[in-house]
């Protein structure tokens, strides 16, 4: 690593890293800037700055309804996924369950199976049950899609913790639920909260299942964006994209803070 012969390679590495950084971030930066544009088309650099597209966003019922639907969707689906996923992860990691590895692999399937297949399948079976175009149908779909991420996050946190702590509590007479609530839960809480955030952002961003299952009345933000993108688009879409990006950034920072807290606890 310290030989002089490495220098040209290091330069190349540095140049490529800068290229990748620009490639990853430039599109997002450009969209954020355009969302504050005063022009009525997607022009860069914008001729002037204004908040008119955000005002437009808040005064268009289609967008405000979509935001409301997205919130009504992400709150139940992320809570359901976190509760069920945490319980499942706890059973699989701490319990003596035959075939735990296979069950774990099955719970990961919604990540592996392409979104289009899940979407088409849910749309198909929902037809007979009248669930298409309903919030319930969307909540079920989003819960299933978030479940594997919760199970994976919580299971990996449980594997790091010492199972003997909980056993000690039980030996000292704590009932199973008390031992879990007082010993294990506080230790894995950062991971549980982190998966709740992840499930929330996954639901907010999800498009393909929503596209199939939603209707004109029950239409989340991602689907509203999609239908605008396929038509003629103006900077309103840059404004909503910036809102989505801001939400993602907020969740990422919260997650990093939770991870940092977890690191301190372990140390």
């Amino acid at each position, binding site marked *: *690593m310290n030989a002089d012969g490495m220098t040209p390679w290091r330069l190349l590495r540095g140049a*490529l890293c800068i290229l990748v950084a620009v490639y990853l971030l430039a599109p997002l930066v*450009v969209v954020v800037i355009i969302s504050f544009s005063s022009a009525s088309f997607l022009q860069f650099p914008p001729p002037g700055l204004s908040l008119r597209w955000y005002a437009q966003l808040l005064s268009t019922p289609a967008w405000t309804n979509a935001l409301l639907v997205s919130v009504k969707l992400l709150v139940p689906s992320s809570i359901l996924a976190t509760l069920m996923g945490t*319980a499942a992860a706890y059973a699989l990691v701490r*319990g*003596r*369950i035959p075939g735990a590895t296979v069950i774990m692999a099955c719970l990961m399937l919604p990540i592996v199976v392409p979104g289009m297949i899940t979407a088409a399948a849910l749309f198909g*079976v929902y037809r007979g049950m009248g669930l298409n175009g309903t919030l319930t149908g969307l909540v079920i779909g989003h819960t299933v899609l978030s479940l594997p991420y919760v199970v994976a996050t919580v299971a990996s946190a449980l594997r790091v913790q010492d199972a003997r702590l909980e056993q000690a509590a039980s030996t000292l007479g704590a009932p199973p639920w008390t031992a879990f609530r007082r010993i294990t839960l506080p230790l894995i809480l950062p991971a549980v909260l982190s998966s709740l955030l992840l499930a929330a952002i996954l639901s907010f*961003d999800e498009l393909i299942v929503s596209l199939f299952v939603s209707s004109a009345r029950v239409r989340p933000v991602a689907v509203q964006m999609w239908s605008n*993108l396929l038509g003629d688009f103006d900077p309103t879409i840059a404004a909503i994209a910036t809102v989505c990006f801001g939400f993602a950034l907020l969740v990422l920072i919260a997650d990093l803070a939770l991870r940092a807290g977890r690191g301190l606890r372990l140390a």
Partner: protein
Amino acid sequence: MTTVDRRLWLLLPAGLTLTVAFLLPVGWLLSRAFTFPQPGFQNFVLLWERPVYLRVMGNTLWISAIVTPITVLLAFPVAHLMAHGSPRLRRWLVFLVLVPFWTSLLVRSFATAILLQRHGVLNSFLIAFGFTEEPLPLLYNMAGLLAGCVQVLLPFVIFPLYSSMARIDPAYMRAASTLGATPVRAFLRVYLPLTLPGLMTGATLVFISTLGYYIIPALLGGARQQMIAQLIQDQIATFGNWGVAGALSLVLLAATAALLALLQFTVGLKEIAR
């Protein structure tokens, strides 16, 4: 002690939800391939006989085969700097890769479209610096599709590669150079083979993700880059042809499963989970 752990009950809600709202519906969709409109293998015969289906399946494989090496080549230097740079630099790089990773695919595809459009930033840049006189067609074609896929998939290679690289003992490279290997030779013969688990994992993730993509080809690609997921959507939404949609889904799922099995065979899923 009872034979069955009582904690099995905790598995019930997740297991039931997964079965009722995922496994059974997907099974139902796949079964359409053999039952719709009548029992038999006619849908697979159709996939084989109609040139449009074969072309789209070929397209999908071809696009994944191009996206994968480009993504790996661009991810390599970033993972390398992440693994061997200073801790401060590493934190910045991780943050830099995580930001787009957490941002919705739709938002990023839209952002890429803005950048690549005819009078977009990239074309203005290329014209200003004299690389081209006329704006290049970068959107609604193969270029746009590749740019979108690689951008979204880079983190899927960077992180597994980084975790392989971070575990490489620097003493190996010193030993190689002490024994007279040139830096390039030491890199190719010692370093590169040690990164293979991460590299294979990342490459497989990229390949299977690309196979199933819908949003990026629909938004950034052209009519000639139609991919299998778009075809499935089209069969259902436009033609109500659940049989062909089921057969296409089965082909897509089989390809995904085969690649994961190959990864398991070469690297081992234990290694991947680390």
